[in-house]
């Protein structure tokens, strides 16, 4: 294969990495910073995709669908936090695993009740519908570039919020020491409810953006769930930089794994994670607890 | 030349930008009670954590009976004969008082990977457990659940667990913290008894207690050793007077 082939594959890898980061960004907020294991993250991704499909169908505009869908996702997140997650902050991770595992079942059924079992597609909005020629017979959809751009924007935005703003400071402080923050007069309950909703909204946003390139189908969330955990763990919890690097690494390993070692492709990402955790038990950028 | 059981050489540890121990070089004499005093944040607990292996020093050396133990994990250090108690009560809350000591005593077996003999049959462990219970004065509370015991008793149990490992050197991090005067007296009495055949390194804020049992003192301030030596020497030290003791006595 010639060089251009590998360059295109590199582009694919980076693009896949961006997509992974988009999905994992909400998870890193919940899992990495708040310390909550949320197995239902994939379900929220699915909720986003279905919202995009449903609202685009209803309003006729993908952009309007995102605009309307995000508040709905925030609301879903808020309700889940208030009525379930908020009881578990002080408990062992085990209970979070189990509760969010049960949430997957609940969301899967709700999705079927609300939207049935068909496979749906969302049409790419007109202005992003074109593509750019890459090689003599392959071209690259503009919409994928748009996803990458959105992903960079979210990465920068999150980094800025967490590292530079008062809200970010409260989140980081609240995660490491609840009592302390409470003593400073911050309402931790409201803070955590807000952050959780934000995490859910990010997952849903990822689902919405992915809907036009992916298809919208029952159980779609579970395809991204485990891999986004791998991304966050490789990067090291609590580090947005780590999540970003983790996403890129997985993008590279998985893409080139498919090309160079096709029969090992699925195993490779997990092997990578095991090796990284053996080398650094808290991930690439994680700190010891 | 003193007979030192433990020696530290230029021990350094910092957390981020904060220097917790700064070039600490100390010698602890065999058979003596050596107290480390100093204001909060002076680096006393960090020093104990370094000695017990709970923390690894950035650089410097720790020698126990002439052996370099600087980078050993806590379990190895414990096995060599250094026991420690914690400032915050650190016991197995759901275990009975007896079981707490017994787990500690069992750690001295060559192997505890025994699966099929009921634990209570191991005689040596049993004896060690009893001795520890008796020493720390909790024989009568042996079947109580640890979490149901009074704070003072839990502190005693903390010491009892350490004793059950039959250490040669005891590291005690504020054994009297939070105790009533009655309980304090009991523990001081216990420490005095232990001093007969152990070396004790003790962090304590209660100056009366310190002066009543310690033979040697080290004063730490801001991670540094300000002064070290006999009680008389510390009492007469100008630097200590200024930096620490005067203030402490005013406060009492």
């Amino acid at each position: 294969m010639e060089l251009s082939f590998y360059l295109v594959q590199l582009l694919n890898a980076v693009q896949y990495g961006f997509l992974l980061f988009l999905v994992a960004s909400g998870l890193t907020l919940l899992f990495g910073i708040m310390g909550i294991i949320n197995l239902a993250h994939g379900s929220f991704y699915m909720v986003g995709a279905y919202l995009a499909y449903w609202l685009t169908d209803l309003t006729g505009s993908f952009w309007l669908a995102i605009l309307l869908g995000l508040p709905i996702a925030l609301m879903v997140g808020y309700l889940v936090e208030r009525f379930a997650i908020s009881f578990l902050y002080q408990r062992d991770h085990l209970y979070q695993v189990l509760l969010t595992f049960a949430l997957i079942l609940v969301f899967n059924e709700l999705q079927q009740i609300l939207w049935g079992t068909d496979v749906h597609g969302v049409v790419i909005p007109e202005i992003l519908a074109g593509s750019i020629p890459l090689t003599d017979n392959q071209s690259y959809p503009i919409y994928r570039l748009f996803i990458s751009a959105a992903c960079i924007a979210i990465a920068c935005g999150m980094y800025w919020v967490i590292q530079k703003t008062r809200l970010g400071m409260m989140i980081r402080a609240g995660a490491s020491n609840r009592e302390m923050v409470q003593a400073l007069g911050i309402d931790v309950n409201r803070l955590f409810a807000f952050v959780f909703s934000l995490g859910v909204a990010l997952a849903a946003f990822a689902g919405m953006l992915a809907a036009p390139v992916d298809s919208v189908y029952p159980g779609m969330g579970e395809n991204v769930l485990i891999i986004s955990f791998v991304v966050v763990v490789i990067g090291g919890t609590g580090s947005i930089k780590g999540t970003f690097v983790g996403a890129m690494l997985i993008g590279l390993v998985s893409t080139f794994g498919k090309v160079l070692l096709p029969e090992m492709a699925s195993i490779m990402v997990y092997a990578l994670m095991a090796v990284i955790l053996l080398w650094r038990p808290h991930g690439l950028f994680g700190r010891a607890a | 030349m003193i007979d030192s059981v433990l020696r530290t050489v230029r021990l350094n540890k910092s957390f981020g930008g904060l220097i917790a121990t700064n070039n600490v070089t100390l010698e602890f004499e065999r058979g003596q009670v050596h107290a480390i005093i100093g204001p909060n944040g002076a680096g006393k607990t960090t020093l104990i954590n370094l000695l017990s292996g709970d923390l690894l020093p950035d650089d410097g050396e720790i020698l126990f009976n002439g052996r370099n133990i600087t980078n050993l994990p806590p379990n190895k250090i414990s096995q060599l004969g250094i026991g420690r108690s914690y400032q915050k009560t650190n016991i197995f809350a759901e275990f009975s008082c007896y079981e707490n000591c017994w787990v500690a005593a069992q750690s001295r077996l060559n192997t505890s990977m025994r699966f099929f003999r009921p634990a209570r049959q191991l005689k040596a462990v049993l004896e060690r457990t009893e001795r520890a219970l008796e020493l720390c004065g909790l024989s009568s509370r042996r079947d109580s659940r640890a979490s149901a015991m009074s704070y003072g008793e839990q502190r005693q149990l903390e010491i009892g667990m350490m004793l059950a490992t039959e250490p040669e050197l005891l590291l005690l991090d504020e054994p009297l913290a939070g105790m009533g005067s009655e309980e304090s007296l009991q523990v001081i009495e216990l420490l005095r008894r232990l001093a007969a055949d152990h070396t004790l390194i003790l962090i304590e804020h209660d100056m009366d207690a310190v002066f009543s049992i310690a033979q040697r003192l080290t004063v730490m301030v801001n991670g540094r050793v300000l002064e070290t030596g006999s009680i008389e020497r510390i009492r007469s030290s100008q630097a200590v007077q200024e930096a620490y003791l005067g203030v402490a006595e005013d406060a009492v």
Partner: protein
Amino acid sequence: MSALIRSMPLLAALLALVLFPQFGSEYYVGLLTRIIIIALFALSLDLLIGYTGLVSFGHAAFYGIGGYALAIAFQDASVIPLWQALPLSLAAAAFAALVIGWISIRTSGIYFIMITLAMAQMFFYFFFESPRYGGDDGIFLFLKPVLMVGSEDILKLDQENNFYYFALSCLVSSYLLLVMILRAPFGKVIKAIKANEHRVRALGYSTSGYKLVSFVIAGTLAGLAGFLEGAHSGYVNPSYMSWHESGVCIAMVILGGMGTLYGPIVGAFIIVLLQNFLPELTEHWQLLLGGIVIAVVLFLPRGATSLYPRICDLIRRSRRGEREPQETADD
């Protein structure tokens, strides 16, 4: 004496299980056999999460390996000798647990959860994508293991009732084995590790060794369960080791009550029976199942079996018409 009284419900339950095939139809004996196998699987996980404090999210790997070892070795055999097949399955599961455990116990907390998950996923995909071991089609076994004495198969596992008793005896012996282990010094140490690992290290224990041994024991018992399931259903496939399976196993342990040996067994009964009968109530039965699990997590974190002492207590109090002293020094 009080120990005897306390174990009365257990003995009664065992008696009921022993007598069941005399009354139950073949279908229900088969169903109960499956529950017993799953209960053994959950029981093995409880050693990790309930006693050692290791939240493994990849326990299904060993369950699957136990089944696959049997299926791979004997898929074309004309006879499956139990004395070869069973040790092989156990050894395979134990070896896998040793390797996975050795890697995983260096981490802790959420990292441990995720790395065990990752390791199980590797096994899942290995079997899923390997053409040699049937891929996602899995492997069929057309024979049951036999235990020959002379020319006579003394187990006759092809009869449902016999398999039932075989599985039940495996469960009971595993249960007794764990009782013994937990009473032994080793058991005390792992319980202490769960309570406060740091303190255990300070007392001079090399805790990773204990955790590893516990991991291997749990993995081996899960392998036994996998062996039984493979032999019982005559079929193994990669979904045995999917992360769903691990998740359901955790659900059983907690639903029943972790940190007790009977809890996971009760949990297995609850989950399998719910999975079996809820679909007859409604098409959207998973909504109900999810709701039940959520309710237990929120309101009954110590599991269904934690209700029993509470109920006993209530009955006793109402009978005596007096209040019990608050502080009781039970274990």
